[in-house]
């Protein structure tokens, strides 16, 4: 048991260093665009790490997390819009919300908690499903959340743009939150719940025979991971400041899943690496698209090129490295093996 805490410590220390390094890089570069990209990266890290808490430990693919993210974003936005703005942005809002406003950071937590509550209520009966049925229901959960967000105009401004959210997310805030998310993910993974859940992932029947309750273990993981997704949503909402239900749909789902698949869903390290590499690749391709667009060499619109590239990368990864870049070992374990040369 002592060994596990030790590894947690190395892992967390490593990512603390990495995040500081990224932060230092930003000071060094100093441009606004770079800061935007990095803030986005940290928000995606929270989201993907949140997804990893459920997907990595239970082994079940989930499409629903972008839905939880949207709950976090809308919830946090609704509570934080200044009272004067509210009557303009959301004229039909219920009275008791209309007159209350909190600090954005508190609202981000409210969003996370709300997302966790929705996930808890919605998914408890779904946790006994396996394989394809589990995936289809998670897809259905995404659809339900999406259509409620689109339909509930009084609160979400319907399919139109939701605006007026105060800008509160800075690079520092995003970094602190994503570091907290990494700590939660590691602590969870090596906790009693995480270990038992991973046991059910590897062999459900055997794990249940020694007393693991699969349904409740998965349920707990969903709640934790929906909370993180909700936090990511809130941060994103306070970063972008105006968004619509379209921002939380299949395109984003695809992006997040590609991150976790390329990185490797079984490890937190993989989730972070996936977020990092996909963001870098994404920005690089976007830059190429822009260069082509402005060079006037080819009269051709290059929308969709990024997605095509991503989907091909994903298929190649799943064929050649189906468990991603970091299949089993966390970075701490890799470092230990390499430098201290012990098992």
């Amino acid at each position, binding site marked *: 048991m002592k060994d596990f805490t030790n590894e947690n410590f190395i892992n967390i220390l490593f990512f603390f260093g990495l995040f500081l390094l990224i932060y230092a890089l930003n000071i060094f570069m100093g441009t606004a665009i770079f800061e935007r990209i990095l803030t986005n990266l940290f928000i995606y890290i929270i989201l993907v790490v949140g997804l990893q808490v459920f997907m990595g430990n239970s082994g*079940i693919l989930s499409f629903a997390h972008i839905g939880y993210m949207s709950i976090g974003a809308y919830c946090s936005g609704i509570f934080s819009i200044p009272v004067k703005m509210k009557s303009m942005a959301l004229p039909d809002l219920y009275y008791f919300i209309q007159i209350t406003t909190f600090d954005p950071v508190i609202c981000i937590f409210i969003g996370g908690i709300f997302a966790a509550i929705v996930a808890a209520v919605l998914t408890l009966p779904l946790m006994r499903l396996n394989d*394809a049925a589990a995936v289809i229901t998670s897809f259905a959960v995404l659809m339900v959340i999406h259509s409620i967000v689109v339909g509930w105009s009084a609160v979400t401004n319907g399919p139109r743009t939701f605006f007026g959210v105060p800008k509160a997310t800075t690079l520092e805030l995003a970094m602190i939150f994503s570091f907290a998310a990494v700590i939660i993910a590691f602590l969870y993974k090596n906790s009693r719940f995480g270990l038992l859940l991973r046991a059910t992932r590897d062999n459900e029947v055997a794990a249940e025979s020694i007393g693991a309750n699969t349904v409740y273990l998965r349920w707990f993981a969903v709640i934790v991971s929906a909370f993180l997704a909700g936090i990511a949503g809130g941060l994103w909402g306070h970063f972008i400041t105006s968004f619509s239900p379209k921002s939380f749909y299949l395109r984003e789902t695809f992006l997040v899943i590609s991150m976790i698949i390329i990185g490797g869903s079984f490890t937190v390290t993989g989730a972070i690496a996936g977020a990092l590499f996909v963001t870098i690749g994404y920005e690089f391709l976007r830059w190429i698209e822009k260069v082509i667009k402005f060079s006037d060499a080819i009269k051709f619109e290059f929308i969709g090129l990024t997605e095509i590239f991503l989907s091909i990368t994903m298929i190649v990864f799943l064929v050649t490295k189906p468990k991603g870049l970091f299949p089993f070992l966390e970075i701490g374990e890799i470092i230990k093996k390499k430098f201290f040369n012990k098992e």
Partner: protein
Amino acid sequence: MILQFIVDVLSLGSMYALFALGLVLVYGILKLVNFAYGELILVIGYSIFLLKGSPFPWFFMSFIAIIMCIFTSIATDYVAFRPVREKSVTAVLITSFAFATLLQNAALLLISAKPKNVPMPSFLSDSVQFLGVITPVRNLISILVAVVCLFIFFQFMKRSLLGLAMRASATNFNMARMLGIPANLVITTAFALSGLLAGIAGTLWMSKISMVFPGIGLEPLLIAFIATVIGGMRSIQGAVLGGFILAFIDMSFNYLLPQDILKFRDAFTFSFVILILVIRPEGLIRGPATGART
């Protein structure tokens, strides 16, 4: 009024049933969900759209479109399923999802993000009246086509050798292979048939909305999902039944619900799907005995 409702349900349901049947065919044998299934509709739409300028008659164009659809379906097998078939369920789900995204964005990149008009023969939209029911011709054609297709399909599954091999594979794939049924042939046939059914249903779908855009595949995919979940993921009769039940639910919502609740229709339908999966995970009609991936 009641007769009108029945005709509406039957015409919508026959389309839904064909969609669902195409999805369940692959699921039944491989126990894997094909997320790229909806993109077959996209292929149909863009094929007809691209052939618009050609001198061929419309029926020939849609015939070519259906052939393209079959080819795409087989390509799905080769790109998304065959390389990862032996690996985890998650891997195949994601590769098919990635393949779907690939096709969508290819359409976005090579053609346009804007909806494009798909030519349809004008007689399909003409209204006919009988027994107090007013309905476009295409609804009656949908019912007719579905009945013919379902009849041929079930006869094929029941009587032909290949149909027997497919049913055997759906029951226990490994056992079927041991008894000498060529696995790849059966799987390719399943994908081809799935493409054919999606192609026919897609042409009917096109005649209804007569335009095509990159995101068009989502709705048919969801329909097929819901219908198969309701009817039973592994039973081909269940898929047909599920299609008609879903059409009945959709139409009842359309007739009964007031406008401001109607926008939550999808939420209701999907909650219903979740409910069915919870109460009866196998759907209304149970399929062959072995449900696990073998």
